[in-house]
Structure formats: C-alpha cells, structure tokens
C-alpha cells in the first residue's frame, strides 16, 4: 500500500468482512476495504459480482448481514433484526455519517421537482441548515465547477444524461463529503457523454478527494486509481496497485475479465 499508513493516518473508511445475504443467496461473502485520505480505489468485477451491494452497505442503503463499517474511526452501531440484517441502531448517528459520505448513483437520481440549483442546494439547506443564500451561492459555484452554471435553473428532465450526472456529482460535493462512493457513474450514459463525467471525476482525484469508484471504464480505472480491487462472486479476488493489477494479474479470473473488457 502507499506511504500513508506509515504516516500513521487513520483510515477514513474501514469496512471489515462485509457480508450480505438476500434470502438464501449470499452475494457478499466477507469484503473488507480501508480507504485513507486521498485514496482513489477503483472496484472492478463482472455484473452481479456484488459491487453495488458492497458500496450500498458502506452507507447502509443496504443493511449488511455481517461485518462492520467504521467511518473516521467511528463504528456505525448496529443491532440484528429478525432476518439477520445488521440494522443501524442510532438513526441520528447514521444520518450524521451519511452526510459526510457522498454517493453517486448509476441512474443519477436527481429530484425531478427541483431545479438543478435546488437539487444541489437541498442537502446544505435541509440537512446542514445552511442559509438559503449561502447554500445557493455555494451550489452555483459547484455547478460552475462541473460546467453547469448556465443551466442552474433547468429541471433535470431538460438535461442530457451526462449533465444530470454532473449535477448529481455537484449535489454530492455540496455536502463537503470526506469520502465519495461512485456506483458505475457512467454506465447509464450514451458513449459520447461518458468523457465529460469522467473528466469531472478525474478533477476530483487531482484535488486529492477520497473516493471508491465502481466502473467498467478500464482505462479510467487504471489511470485514476491509487488502488484497484477486483470482486468475484462476493469476494475480493485480487487487490493492489493498479499498474500491477492491470499488467500482471495473478488470478486467472481477473485475466479473463481484463481480456474481455480491454478489447
């Protein structure tokens, strides 16, 4: 790993042995990850390997059936429910921690009844209780940053997919997250719109943001990452330095995966 551990930096995120069962099927069989400040971890894996479920378990959009999540050294407290899920025990703690972890969805999930500006200012206004003027000024600055300032008063329905995803990224940035989780941010986009979104995420990497990014864009995954994980059927099959992982994969499954996706 990088020198950050040697510096004694505590991990921003530490997920241990995350498991998730849907009925009889265990789709995560114990996945762990540590993310230190500035880490950009890209997560690869075939469709159905559990990448989305893993990301969703990290902020409890999905309740894991095993394992633990620590954010900034603070464990998310849970209690088992009847079905073996680890339900968050302290709603207030969960809300507080979620506000510090951004999530960017494959389908953008903008709120269609609010303008782009309204979408971006919503979290600061309602969750962080920032004044409207301040939240909107900040939102506008973020929209400028993702190249959407002139469309601030558009409704999401009037934006292209790439613009919607950039707006969704601005909405996440508005919360000043210490960690951002991306779940296939470009998979719902027409090919010609992928670049503009990846460019925004590259910019965030240059800023030193801490990010976990699930993606099928292999070139991007290799170039932006400080570390890469390959998931296979709910387990980490291979994990390490992106250059090594892409050029000398150890596992046969990763070799096959890369052959299929690099061609």
């Amino acid at each position: 790993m990088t020198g950050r551990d040697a510096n004694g930096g505590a991990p921003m995120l530490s997920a241990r042995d995350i498991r998730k069962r849907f009925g009889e099927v265990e789709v995560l069989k114990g996945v762990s990850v540590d993310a230190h400040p500035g880490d950009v971890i890209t997560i690869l894996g075939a469709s159905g390997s559990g990448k989305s479920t893993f990301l969703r378990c990290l902020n409890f959009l999905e309740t894991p059936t095993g394992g633990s999540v620590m954010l900034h050294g603070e464990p998310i407290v849970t209690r088992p429910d009847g079905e073996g899920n680890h339900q968050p025990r302290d709603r207030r703690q969960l809300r507080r921690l979620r506000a510090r972890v951004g999530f960017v969805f494959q389908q953008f999930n903008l709120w269609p009844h609010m303008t782009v500006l309204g979408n971006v200012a919503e979290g600061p206004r309602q969750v962080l209780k920032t004044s409207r003027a301040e939240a909107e000024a900040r939102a506008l600055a973020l929209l400028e940053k993702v190249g959407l300032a002139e469309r601030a008063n558009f409704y999401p329905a009037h934006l292209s997919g790439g613009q919607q995803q950039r707006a969704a990224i601005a909405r996440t940035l508005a919360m000043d997250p210490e960690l951002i989780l991306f779940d296939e941010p470009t998979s719902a986009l027409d090919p010609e719109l992928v670049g503009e979104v990846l460019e925004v995420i590259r910019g965030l990497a240059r800023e030193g943001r801490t990010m976990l990014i699930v993606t099928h864009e292999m070139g991007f995954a290799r170039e932006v990452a400080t570390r890469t994980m390959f998931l296979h059927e709910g387990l980490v099959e291979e994990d390490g330095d992106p250059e090594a992982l892409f050029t000398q994969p150890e596992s046969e499954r990763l070799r096959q995966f890369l052959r299929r996706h690099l061609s």
Partner: protein
Amino acid sequence: MDGFGWDIILQSLPKLLEGLWVTAQLVLVSGLFGLLLALPLGIARSSPRPWVRALPFGYIFFFRGTPLLVQLFLIYYGLAQFEAIRQGPLWYLLREPYVCALLTFSLHTAAYIAEILRGALQAVPPGEVEAARAIGMGRWLTLRRVLLPRAAQIGLPAYGNEVILMVKGSALASTITLLDLTGMARTLIAGNYRAVEMFLAAGVLYLIFNWVLQRLFRLAERAMNRHLREPPRLVQQPVPRVPSGLDPPL
C-alpha cells in the same frame, strides 16, 4: 302544464344556485378535510412496516366497502342513539344534518384519497428516496422534501377525479333534509310539479360545476408539472462569485 317551462327554470334559478352553493361547500370542505385525514392514513398505508400498514386497513376497508348512503344514515341516525353523544358537548353540532353530511363525506373521501396517496407514494422512484437518504435526510425530511411533493404530482389527477365523484355523491345529502342542489330541486318540485325542468336544470348546474373543477385541477396539474414543460432558459447574467477559499477550482 303544457310545453317546456323555461320560465319556471328561470324563476327557480336563484333557489337552485343556493342549493349549488351548499353542494359546493359540502364538496370543497370535505375534499379538504378528507385530504388532511388521508395524509396520515395514506402515509401509514405505504409504510414498509406491516403493522403500521395494518392500522388504517379497517378504516379504509369499511369506508370503501359500504355505500355512502349507508354511512350517511349511520352517522345521521346512529349518533343520536348514543346517550353519551346526546349529552356530550358536541351534540349541538352533531345533530345538524349539515355537520353530519360534512363528517360523513370527509370520512368517506378520506378513505379513497388515502389509497390514492398510497399509490402515489409507492410510485415515487426508489432512487429519489435513496438519494435523499444518502445525503443524510431522515424519514420525515425525506417525506416532506421528496416523497410528498412527488406524490402530489403523481396523485393529483386521481385526486381531482375523486373530488368530482364526491360532487355527484353529495346529492345523497338531500336524503337527510339538506337543501343541496338535489335537495333544493326536490323541494321546488314539491311546489311546482316540474320534475323534468328542475332536474334538468340541476343536472346542467352539476355539469357546469364539475367542468369548472376540472379546469381548476388541470391548471394545478400544469403548475405542478412545470418541471416537465417549461422551456429551459440559460442563465445569462454572470454567475456571482463566491468568496474565495470556499471551493477550489478543478
């Protein structure tokens, strides 16, 4: 009694309009109270928890499963059977047929509106709710800022339809002596024996009233769906600068 009595209609018009005014009150007030009552019922109905969902079930089952006329009679004649109610502080209200009709219609329409609301809440794409949760919104904030506004857009046409059904259902108020539009027509007929003219005039007034309501709901829908309609406008004025240090540029 020969020929069609245009003059009778004209003479009766002030009285019929009086009746229409009573009908309008019954419908609008019960439409509003029904909506208020339906909010907790509909929200409970869409809860992921089975026991919360079960709470309003009996209520909705009863009011949707029995005729409005039966409900009206039960409240108008039934309440008076209870000594406790007759001695109670609200008796001076509850013995009024007008209040009984308002109460019945509100309870009745609330059951339907609750089901409309449940359907609308469940039709909100789950991703929009997850986006709210992911930035740290709690259950109530999500409800207030995302679910209810979205459900209002989705459920408004069905709600408008329910209000119009209640306009027609409100004619039953005449069976407990109220002089709503139908009650007024019947009273007038008892004096002038012009059943066809009176009911025809009443029918036309119902039509006009419903047409106006439909227009109003159409306008409300347009206003609520402006996010899908309004042609986008680019922001022309320069973007105001924020104090530096708030956010580093890319």
